[in-house]
């Protein structure tokens, strides 16, 4: 009996040991771990919603019992999130960032930027699109897109001088030569929504998500506002993505310009800046990690994102939220976003500087 008991015990111990060894051998780095996903925007916005949706599906491709936790680090137009990633987190692959890239912030050497994009690895990013809309009753009346050219002075609204919404509102007007008073200080789409409804501003830009959430079925449908043109991601082959198809008859800004300017495309620094921004400022749903986490971790993250991007359920959830299919650039396909942004033409740089230049105002005495 004793021998029998010993035999059973030995067998159980051996089996347990074999099982645990096997599981160790097959265990992935992310199994059972918590991955913190820094979202460089506020808790209630579209970026966070997209980050949450992506995390919900991606965690199962990352590991067994992996948990992905969203942490919002908003501020400075997304700069603060990257500062946080590079300064406050360990490069162990357990913290990644989901949000908008900050190539422009680094290029313009904004004083809040303390990270170097060279230290950051690209996991993947989805394209997005923006649309500009205007109040239909704005003098002398904007019933169709080309009426914008008859406006003498447009009041446009946005968050600040370097954020996406402000850029897509102002830059096209500057290219078109429409005199514009740009009102800053609107913290997010809901504030802009209130402002255009109360006629405080006449024009705004919004991402595709915001357009369908707030405007398409309300003030656009009722005729209170008119969509003017949309802006899409410029791909490496020099072509714009066709994501703008979701806006129906609305034209891409380049097509709108050609249509109203005898078939010619615009030229000059502002247009070069427009093209540069279409390349680097149209992929807000990007995923980044510190390069120092190592190639193995980066590769695992890229693989998980690739599988998620192909997951039918995720694609359906994405489409439900954003009204378009996800168009991801993953891994090496998107590396150019991290390496080529510095190769900006002098004209484009001059255009960007003109766009983000601060208006000279009274005050500001220099201290001795």
């Amino acid at each position, binding site marked *: 009996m004793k021998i029998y008991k010993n035999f059973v015990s030995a067998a159980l111990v051996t089996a347990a040991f074999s099982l645990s060894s096997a599981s160790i051998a097959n265990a992935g780095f992310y199994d059972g771990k918590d991955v913190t996903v820094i979202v460089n925007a*506020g808790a*209630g916005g579209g970026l966070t*919603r997209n980050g949450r949706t992506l995390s919900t599906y991606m965690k199962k491709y990352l590991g067994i019992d992996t948990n992905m936790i969203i942490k919002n680090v908003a501020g400075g137009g997304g700069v603060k999130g990257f500062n946080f990633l590079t300064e406050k987190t360990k490069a162990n692959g357990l913290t990644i960032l989901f949000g908008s890239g900050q190539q422009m912030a680094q290029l313009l050497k904004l004083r809040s930027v303390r990270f170097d994009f060279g230290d950051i690895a690209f996991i993947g990013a989805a394209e997005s699109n923006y649309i500009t809309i205007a109040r239909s009753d704005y003098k002398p009346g904007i019933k169709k897109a080309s009426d914008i050219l008859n406006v003498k002075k447009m009041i446009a609204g946005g968050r600040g001088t370097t954020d996406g919404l402000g850029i897509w509102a102002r830059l096209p007007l500057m290219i078109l030569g429409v005199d514009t008073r740009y009102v*800053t200080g609107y913290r997010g789409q*809901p504030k802009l929504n*209130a402002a255009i409804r109360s006629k405080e501003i006449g024009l705004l830009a919004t991402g595709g998500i915001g357009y369908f*959430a707030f405007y398409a079925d309300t003030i656009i449908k009722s005729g209170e506002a008119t969509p003017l043109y949309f802006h899409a991601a410029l791909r490496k082959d020099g072509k714009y993505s066709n994501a703008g198809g979701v806006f129906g008859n609305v034209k891409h800004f380049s097509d709108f310009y050609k249509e109203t300017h005898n078939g010619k495309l615009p030229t000059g620094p502002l247009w070069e800046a427009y093209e540069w921004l279409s390349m680097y400022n149209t992929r807000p749903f990007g995923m980044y990690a510190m390069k120092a986490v190592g190639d193995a971790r980066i590769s695992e993250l890229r693989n998980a994102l690739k599988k998620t991007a192909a997951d039918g359920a995720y694609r359906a959830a994405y489409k439900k939220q954003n009204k378009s299919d996800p168009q991801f650039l993953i891994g090496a396909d998107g590396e150019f976003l991290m390496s080529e942004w510095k190769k900006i033409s002098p004209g484009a740089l001059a255009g960007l500087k003109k766009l983000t230049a*601060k208006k000279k105002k009274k005050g*500001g005495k220099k201290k001795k």
Partner: protein
Amino acid sequence: MTEALIEGFLLVFSWPAIGFLVLGCFLGIWLGAVPGLGGIIGLVLLLPFTFGMDTVPAFALLLGMFAVTSTSDTIASVMLGIPGTAASQATILDGYPLAQQGKAARAFGAAFTVSALGGVFGAIILAFSLPLILPVIKSFASPELFILGLLGLAMVGSLSGASILKGLSVALLGILLSTIGYGVAESIPRYHFETDYLLDKLPLIPVVLGLFAIPELMELAIRNVSISRIPKGEATDGGMLEGVKDVFRNWWLAMRCAAIGTYIGMLPGLGAAIVDWVAYGHAVQSAKDKSKFGHGDIRGVIAPEAANNATKGGSLIPTVAFGIPGSLGTAILLGALLIQGLKPGPEMLTTELHITFSMVWTIVLANILVAGLLMLWSKQVAKIAFLPGHLIVPGVILFVFLGAWLGSGSFGDWITCLLMGIVGFVMKRGGWPRPPLILALILGNIMENSYQISMLAYDGFGWLTRPVVLIVIFLIIVTIILSARGITKNKKSKKESIKSQINRDKDLDEPSEGGAINPIISFPFAILLFLLFCWAAYEADSWPDSVREFPIMSAVPGAVMVFFILFFDGKKLLSEITFHGNFSSALKYSSEKAMLKSATQFFGYLLAMVLIMLLLGQKIVLPLFIFVYLMRWGKYNWRISIGYALGGWVLMVCFYDRILDLLWYPSWISTWLPEILPAWVPSWLLV
């Protein structure tokens, strides 16, 4: 409409919606009662769980939780003098003195009854206001928000207690603090001392917790008294039923404040954070006898509690109807709405009206359910008021510092909390009212933003002629006249007031907000404030107009007012020195009166905790603080101390770590401890 109303009602009662509603209510009670948590954290926490749920159960869970946090937050406000959430800040002004008088149950009775009534009444007003909402929303642009903020500041007179000059100076300090971080019009950082933490703005939660919680906890620690200064059994008129009766005695005030809550809640940008202050100010201004406010006047509990529950319904409608959220909470709810595939717009008031009504019903039912539950429990909760202070202090310190950490998850939150604790103590002991600072800190940000937008959008001061702006300017003038009349009346009956105040304060050993007279503390604080205002104005001088306008607008008048305070306090200081014979005797007397020595020791404990945290991290240092405090300060035995500390640790690990997924401070030990821990010990237990 009736059909939609009934259908909405039935939807909420269908399974599993009703189950999720009850679950949400329980979560809301907990999140509201713990200082620093609140509905926003609850929404962020619950949102991912609603991804796969149907619309009505999802909103039953989210709204059930969100609607009731402003009911249960009364517990911390009344029992500890700490705002449970941002919506219950004004409740502490009279709620806490009631608890000190042994009348916590009465305050609860009134607060919970009026919370339920406010929530229901707010929802009814809302249902009848639906046709009016679009014109209201459209007529409120940035100029109206700015001018409404100014009206809110005009209420400072009602919140300043004994000294209106000090109240106004403190309000200007609040506005100055609100300008920390990037300017609105240009990205020029202000007063940020080269730190990332201050680049955006000063987070509200650490400021509120530091300013109100730490001074009260310090009092409990130093005196080792219970919250109630009156022994159990000796308190009269303190029953819960009495509180319920109070509400019906003041039903007209409750209705007015519920209406204030609903309509202010509707206005995007103002939101719930100021509604309690506005309602409190209204209660003071409309009262014939104002003398008891700040000393435990039940009307000071009824007004903010009626308003803060009503505001939840108010802010919901513009959110669902136009996608314009009235507050951060409703902004997150808007996200939930979009995730559910619903689009804010006219459909929510037409084809999807039953869904909208199901949300309104959820708010109504949640308010009634939770008010009932809390009524049942309030007798037990009120007993905490009679516990020894030493048992309360360490546990609440844990909640306060973790609540502050939730501000932005930065070490700066702890520093802010501690610094504001010191400021709060000095203000309390020196007779400087604290509420105007918070009100101005909240309003300052909204006002500067609205002002800058107005100046840009309307190309100057053209917005001043807008009809709503003119109406609000008229209301501001009326408010100032009423406040001025109040001051004149006060002067007439000054002798009598001082006498009665001294008697009351003597009974409680606790002066009212801004009522303490201690020039030895007040005078140096005034000097510091004067220097601060002067420095802030000098610093701002080099910025462009749009960036420096608000700092200058607060710093220059602030310096002038504090100059006058220095003059008056200087006179009091001289008479104090004359009375005591010499400066050192006067200093000794004032130090003893303000318990400066013990206060310094207490702050020393907190400072040591904050510094040790850099090495050991929060999960070790907070239980360690509990243990050391109970052993050394409270003189409890090691069994109780260890048990209490372990309880705190379990709470941190289970709730804040595992459920809230808090990102902890990367302490020194977190860099090496996980590497040496055995594989079977998860590192999240310690770092």
